């Protein structure tokens, strides 16, 4: 459904990503890992049509993406800036649902359900600045999930929550996505997470980012936090990805230092 062909982007003279090729199938969960500053967010923003890549193309259902594709939701890395301070958590989650043609009541209900699922039912009436970092992040996850997009882009969506909540959110996302047949592209730093959540793990090199690894995660579904992580296949994959990332990063660190 999503295809990146030689996707390249430079900020001014600085090249952030370099000829990235990637194909994502309908309903697939693809995790992207890579060193800090390698261009993951840039990649995500190109797919979302928020920046016009300097080269290459993003194809969605075969058609080139000119502006923001329809039926998309994004969880931004900088979640605190992507929540509207003049709206309550509930209203923040409900806002995109206007596009779904829901009336006020239906919107509020859907938003409330999503907030409850991320454990924020009690904080629905609070404003973003009254929420802790992790709570804000969960609001923006709830917003994306409530929207039920066909393509969901997430930029380190679980970075600010505790381990337990993180696992619950991982499972929540997988459940919702499977149920609604969403396609997901998830950026993460957590190698375990990438293997646990992804059907595929894509590894990017240091900046300018290129694809240096593309592993298919062949684990039985539905995943389970305890059992899946105990599988030999999981442990092996995790080690593979870990090695790959580590290899790059080490080289990277060598050069920049």
């Amino acid at each position, binding site marked *: 459904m999503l295809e990146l062909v030689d996707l390249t982007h*430079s*900020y*001014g003279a600085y090249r952030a990503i370099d000829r990235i090729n990637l194909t994502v199938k309908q309903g697939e969960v693809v995790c992207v890992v890579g060193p800090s500053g390698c261009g993951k967010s840039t990649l995500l923003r190109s797919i979302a049509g*928020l*920046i016009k890549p300097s080269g290459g193309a993003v194809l969605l259902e075969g058609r080139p993406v000119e502006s923001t594709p329809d039926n998309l939701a994004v969880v931004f890395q900088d979640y605190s800036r992507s929540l509207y301070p003049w709206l309550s958590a509930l209203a923040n989650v409900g806002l995109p649902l206007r596009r779904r043609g829901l009336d006020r009541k239906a919107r509020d209900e859907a938003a409330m359900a999503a907030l409850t699922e991320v454990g924020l039912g009690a904080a629905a009436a609070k404003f973003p600045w009254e929420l802790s970092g992790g709570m804000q992040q969960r609001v923006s996850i709830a917003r994306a999930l409530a929207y039920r997009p066909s393509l969901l882009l997430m930029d380190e969506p679980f970075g600010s929550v505790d381990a337990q909540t993180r696992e619950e959110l991982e499972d929540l996302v997988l459940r919702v996505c499977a149920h609604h047949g969403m396609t997901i592209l998830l950026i993460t730093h957590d190698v375990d997470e990438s293997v646990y959540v992804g059907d595929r793990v894509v590894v990017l090199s240091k900046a300018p980012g290129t694809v240096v690894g593309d592993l298919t995660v062949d684990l039985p579904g539905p995943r389970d936090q305890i059992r899946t992580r105990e599988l030999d296949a999981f442990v092996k994959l995790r080690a593979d990805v870990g090695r790959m990332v580590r290899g790059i990063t080490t080289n990277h660190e060598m050069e920049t230092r």
Partner: protein
Amino acid sequence: MTRVRSKRKSFASRVAGLWIVPVTLVLWELATRLATQPYFPAPSTIAVRIQELWFSGPLTRGLLTDEAIEAFAPSLGRLFAGWILASAAGILLGVAIGRSARLADYLDPMLQFGRAVPPPLLVPIFFALFQIGMATQLAIIVFGVIWPVLLNTADGCKTVDRQYLETARVFGFSRADVLWRVVIPAAMPKIFAGLRLSLSLALILMVVSELIGSTSGIGYGLITAQQNFLFADVWAYIVLLGVLGFLLNASFLLLEGRILAWHQRARRTI
């Protein structure tokens, strides 16, 4: 990409950006010719008057006539003196009341009062307070111009992103550093909005100050023309003010572009 391209914008494309000027002129000419109203002469008539009044002098002086020099020099002097004084006072006072709630409380009613008083009505009071004419005129300009700078500065200094200030606090910045390195840069966009407003306001108040008790300058020329029913002259002055304002603003934007580059680029979606 976009940034690079816009920087290299050619002279030709900049001039082409002014397409609205000829379009407006043509529409204006047509409208005035159709209306044939003595109060609204055609721009072509005005242009001729402008040339006669100010630009028919000797080449050695860039065509400027005596009249032009006599009118422009004192006016521009008052304009800049007034604007700079007002800006300095406005920023100083604005920072002070933006950073001190107590001072703001004490001064607020007086400032809000002063802000709503038409400057021309204060002329007799200024006459009573200042013993020289020039001071009165400067006082009128400063009094009229200071408000946008003062208000925007105060507002900008009062509403600095909390996280910026907290960062400064935990690192133990000195008061001066908090002011100079955090508050003022953060308030800069608002201060500049105020300065830009006040610049054209200064032009207006320069004219107002010359309407009363002056025998030179653009405002004096304007009121003379008005009271002599010389409409082409009145319009010549109006156009002159417009062009002056345009030039001042263009220079101001250049300066702003330099100083606020970080802001403009940070706020651009790439």
